[in-house]
């Protein structure tokens, strides 16, 4: 990558690029196949849902990697595998060199503190019977981070303050708060553990436009203040462009393209990425009137029985005969720009 593009990529974000040399997370050939069973008494595995099927990427320290794709492409499963909420079928997840997939539950405990998650739905991810204070102190007690209860109370107030909530919310229950406020609690809970890395799984998707912008800004402020690394899973491409340094596009369990944020949005290479970007309407009527709309045909096939060869070939505009036979290699077409397509 040239010096000039580096500067433009970093625009406005305090450039984490310079420090971005060290890999925080390396995911190698990750596979997550869920068995499909038949029979009640003696379940028999009849097929596998290939939710994630051999993906490789890394996330550098301080970086925000966007993971985009449509429903069922495996982006959430990838996040859950990193969080060790799913036991991956195959592949390695290295966190600062330590393979999380090989750790026993007890050995995993210190990493559970460093790796946190913010969920999409602030309605179902907070316990309705717990006060906000208890929701925030529970992880501190479990991990024995702050043993003194007065210090924990102070920490709660500090967390609420950092997330833009006033102190009076500590004594409230989730149902007494709006969606945006609940999401702030979800973010505060993740921060309670002093994490290094946060998986944001559709963390801004459940909100109305004006509240969404508030949550995006909060995530951004926290990233800069605490030097956090994010895996930002989202289906809203505009938000990803705004927040991420690099972006990976997934389709049917495979990674089809990975590049620096502006490079991906300005010069997409893979036909699926192109179609995806074209499908997003831009809030500018004059521009939309000029824009050529190429509508992608068909629907996403089932991950139980994905198409042979390149998984995208049945919907692809530029597919040739070979695409249904050979699985395209994920290759570095330009420096830092990876694509899984033989025809580009």
């Amino acid at each position, binding site marked *: 990558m040239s010096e000039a593009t580096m500067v*433009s990529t970093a*625009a*406005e*974000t305090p450039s984490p690029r310079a420090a971005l040399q060290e890999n925080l997370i390396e995911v190698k050939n990750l596979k997550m196949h869920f068995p499909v069973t038949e029979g009640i008494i003696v379940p028999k595995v009849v097929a596998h849902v290939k939710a994630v099927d051999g993906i490789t990427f890394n996330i550098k320290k301080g970086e925000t990697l966007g993971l985009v794709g*449509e*429903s069922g492409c495996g982006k959430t499963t990838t996040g859950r595998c990193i969080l060790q909420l799913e036991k991956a079928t195959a592949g390695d997840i290295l966190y600062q060199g330590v393979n999380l997939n090989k750790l026993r539950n007890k050995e995993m405990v210190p990493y559970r503190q460093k790796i946190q998650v913010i969920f999409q739905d602030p309605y179902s991810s907070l316990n309705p019977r717990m006060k906000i204070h208890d929701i925030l102190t529970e992880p501190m007690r479990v991990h024995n981070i702050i043993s003194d209860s007065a210090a924990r109370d102070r920490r709660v107030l500090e967390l609420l303050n950092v997330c833009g909530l006033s102190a009076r919310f500590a004594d409230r229950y989730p149902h007494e708060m*709006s969606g*945006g406020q609940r999401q702030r609690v979800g973010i505060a809970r993740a921060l309670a553990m002093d994490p290094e890395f946060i998986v944001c799984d559709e963390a801004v998707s459940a909100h*109305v*436009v*004006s*509240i*969404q*912008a*508030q949550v*995006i*800004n909060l995530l*951004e402020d926290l990233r800069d203040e605490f030097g956090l690394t994010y895996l930002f899973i989202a*289906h809203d*491409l*505009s*938000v990803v*462009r*705004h*927040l991420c340094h690099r972006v990976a596009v997934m389709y049917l369990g495979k990674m089809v393209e990975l590049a620096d*944020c*502006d490079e991906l*949005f*300005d010069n997409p290479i893979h036909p699926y990425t192109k*179609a*995806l*970007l*074209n*499908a*997003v*309407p*831009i*809030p*500018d*009527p*004059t*521009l*939309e009137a000029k824009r050529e*709309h190429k*509508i*992608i045909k068909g*629907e*996403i096939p089932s991950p139980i029985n994905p198409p042979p060869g390149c998984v995208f070939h049945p919907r692809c505009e530029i597919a040739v005969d070979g695409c249904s036979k050979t699985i395209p290699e994920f290759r570095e077409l330009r420096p830092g720009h990876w694509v899984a397509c033989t025809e580009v």
Partner: protein
Amino acid sequence: MSTLLEIEELQTQFFTSAGTVKAVDGISYTVDEGETVAVVGESGCGKSVSALSILRLVADPPGKVVGGKIRFQGRDLLQLSDEQMRDVRGNDIAMVFQEPMTSLNPVLTIGMQITETLQHHLGMSDEEANARAVELLGMVGISEPQRRLSQYPHHLSGGMRQRVMIAIALACEPKLIIADEPTTALDVTIQAQILELMKNLTRQFGVALIVITHNLGVVARYADRVNVMYAGKIIETGSAADVYHSPKHPYTLALLKSVPRLDLPRQAKLDPVEGQPPDLARLGPGCPFRPRCRFAIDRCATENPKLEQVNPGHLSACWEKNNLTSPGTGVS
């Protein structure tokens, strides 16, 4: 083009234990034949209720259309008997709902759900209705339409179900289709397919369309005119180009500034609308947007501005509508 639908001072209220919620509070707009009008706004601004009011589908109790006129081809829909209204629904005005998962009946076949309308409104025989249903399914781009007639909604994907909903809406060749968040539950490539389909079919048959959405991009791509709603009122209306390029209401301005753009590199931090939308059961005098507004003046606290013309065809309900030239006014 002649006016198809004319809504005048429509008021819909919900009578709840927490008080009277003025969900729609005196909105007026028109839809011309073959025109696409978008109604945008955030959750709870009354955009769906205003659409349901047109078809008199607001659940009573707790809701009730308490005032106004809805003239469709000259007839006031609010004066019709229930029976007459049933003839209008599906026949003259059709509706496409947000959730294709819940708006199709799960225990009836796709065929039955399409032919029901045809037989009821047009008095077709079974054979005629079946043939027309096959034709309609083909029109909305569903493969093997004959076989689909005997399938149930759970056999189809979300995008396919929304296509079936559109087929049902088109069945009786209505003059107007109201689409309430037709693509919100769908993936972006499927959303593009469905919107393109709706655009092509409405052009082909000259059907007018009211699209209700919170997605500003969808509006920009498909709508001729836009009504922006806030707290039960239309606060700005105009052609899509006017409203997007020179918004004349602080709320529209703020809304446009709070969404990141896909086509531009990241500029600066987003500029969100601070605060929460108001509680519609507890609206005081004055402009409901005032607590979140950067341009508010003293007058805004006591007098609620009416929708007034800024430029021909472009109206805004704001006392400061001509003084919004310096967006942000230093706050960022």
